[in-house]
């Protein structure tokens, strides 16, 4: 028997493999589970030692996350009417009243606008550029592609100060447009290169067949090439969104109010009247959800093999 032959693994081997996979999954999922659990703990439980695995779940963290609160004196408490909702009750039990909504919702919305906006723009521009590089005779094509790639060769934060000054001059500081443009610029090299690879793999004959069948070049592009490139577009979009969504350094530097995204905002929740870890954890948990949904939504496109067999190789 040669060392490379494929054999059915024995029962023992399967057991070992299973244990390894489960161990790995537990190790990687642990911090995530910890964050989600902390979001449902009371502030006391969240800092108790030894840490509590079993605890009385509460939505206090989430209420704190979405509201601003004011302390009241016991006298004042008696004069107030009974709270008419479950979240007011939670706040009242701590001798507080809700003063208004917090800025988290707004920051979260900023993240959505900037994250998805820059992802859309990166994919839109990236697909067109990748198609052109893949299909047309572009003068100094290799140099241009290298130039595009070279923008990735240093950490973007190295140019943070010039960008900061430039943005201030141009009035792009703390604006949605400014952040969308910035993240698009950073992501574009990735999207052009990834998408060019995917489009290169689509045989030219499909477009030629469409041209012969009476379609224009642009129709051939969006009716034939785009559906073929769906896999590549989906995976590239996920990469772009994850970068824009998680980006912290530029967000701290360039946004402070209007266009501040969630990552620089979440840490600021700590510190107002004690360390409110459940509220931070709640903020982080909600922050995870959009990327998760987006990835699950595009998952079926990530499965390769849609084009398999249509062109004989």
């Amino acid at each position, binding site marked *: 028997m040669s060392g490379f032959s494929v054999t059915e693994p024995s029962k023992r081997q399967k057991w070992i493999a299973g244990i390894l996979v489960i161990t790995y999954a537990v190790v990687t999922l642990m911090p995530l589970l910890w964050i989600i659990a902390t979001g449902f703990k009371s502030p006391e439980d969240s800092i108790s030692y030894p840490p509590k695995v079993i605890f009385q779940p509460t939505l206090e963290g989430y209420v704190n996350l979405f509201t601003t609160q004011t302390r009241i004196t016991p006298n004042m408490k008696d004069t107030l009417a009974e709270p008419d909702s479950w979240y007011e009750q939670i706040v009242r039990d701590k001798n507080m009243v809700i003063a208004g909504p917090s800025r988290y919702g707004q920051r979260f919305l900023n993240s959505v606008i900037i994250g998805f906006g820059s992802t859309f723009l990166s994919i839109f521009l990236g697909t067109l550029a990748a198609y052109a590089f893949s299909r047309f005779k572009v003068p100094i094509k290799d140099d241009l592609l290298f130039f595009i790639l070279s923008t990735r060769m240093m950490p973007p934060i190295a140019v943070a100060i010039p960008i900061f000054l430039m943005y201030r001059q141009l009035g792009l500081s703390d604006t949605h447009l400014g952040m969308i443009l910035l993240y698009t610029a950073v992501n574009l090299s990735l999207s052009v290169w990834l998408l060019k690879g995917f489009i290169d793999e689509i045989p030219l004959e499909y477009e*030629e067949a469409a041209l*012969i069948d009476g379609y224009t070049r642009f129709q051939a592009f969006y009716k034939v090439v785009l559906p073929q490139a769906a896999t590549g577009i989906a995976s590239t979009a996920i990469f772009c969104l994850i970068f824009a969504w998680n980006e912290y350094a530029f967000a701290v530097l360039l946004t402070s109010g209007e266009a501040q995204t969630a990552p620089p905002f979440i840490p600021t929740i700590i510190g107002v009247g004690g360390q409110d870890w459940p509220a931070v954890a709640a903020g982080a948990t909600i922050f995870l959800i959009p990327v998760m949904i987006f990835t699950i939504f595009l998952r079926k496109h990530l499965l390769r093999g849609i084009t398999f067999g249509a*062109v*004989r190789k």
Partner: protein
Amino acid sequence: MAQIIIKNLRKDFGDFTAVKSSSFTIEDGEFFMLLGPSGCGKTTTLRMIAGLEMPTAGEVFIDGEEVSQKRASERDIAFVFQMFALYPHLNVQQNISYPLKSQGMPKAQIKVKVAEVAKILGIEHILNKPVGGLSGGDRQRVALGRAIVREPKAFMMDEPLGALDAEFREHMSQELRTLHDQMGATTVYVTHDQLEAMQMGDKIVVMNHGSVEQFGVPQDIYDWPATMFVANFIGSPSMNFLHFEGTVATGDTSISFDGQSFDIPAQLSTASGKLVMGVRPEHVVLQDDSAYRGEVTATEYLGTTQIVTLDTPNGILKARTPATQVANVGDTIGLDFNPRTITLFDETTGEALLSKANKGVLDHG
């Protein structure tokens, strides 16, 4: 349906000339073969007719209209690709109806048309299947269906059988030919397989290094090759070349080398120096009383015939003889040639010398 005229068509890719000034005419309804080895410019020529490449110079007339600078979509021709190029995200029915959709044909009418075509091709049962899982033959039929559904002026086919198994290719080539005869549409077909070209074509253009070597009906090209390239490329085994130094003059009806004299068709030109006598294997006669002799180096038994390979003073020679003829390796056998079928070539130019026998063929093209 249309006549296609190619005039001085030329295509350069940078410094490389893929097609050098080709001219030929494809008559209405003809099954026309573009034949040549890979890299000879046959596919480029086809793509220029179809509008997938723009010629550097020259003209293409389809149905009397000059179209060389028009887009493929404006030429009303269909193209069958070697790799089929079925749209992988559409099913069979959608693939076939795609060209009709671009014309804006109403849905009901498209359905009728697709059903009609599916019936002709015998693919009604797979209309709703995705193209991914189809067999090679079915993919080929779908590709044909997509081509014929719009009733174009002409069909372009780029080695459409090249991706099929040898066994199935035979079957499909018959199907194609039958389909062509049914529809009577002008078809331009690219192949590197000389046998396929001879079997299927009404006419053949043989190309080499971007130039047209010869153009005519299969039998003329087989019997009276215009160049040594054509003689060598067509036929299996190919034409034998006996190399010698000598002189022929107009009116000569025999030629001699190595002290032997051979009858040849009456010559119409004069040449001297390095010459070649070309003779097809089936026109070599093994005959022991002949003074010109060769030594048998191999025999291949083919059932009713055999191929006998002989070493002669003027080069290797292959003879196709009845299988019953005795020829053993090591024997020295006398050889004779059927004089009516001999072509002489000038070895330096590679061109055939004009004789009374090949004049009719070589003059027209």
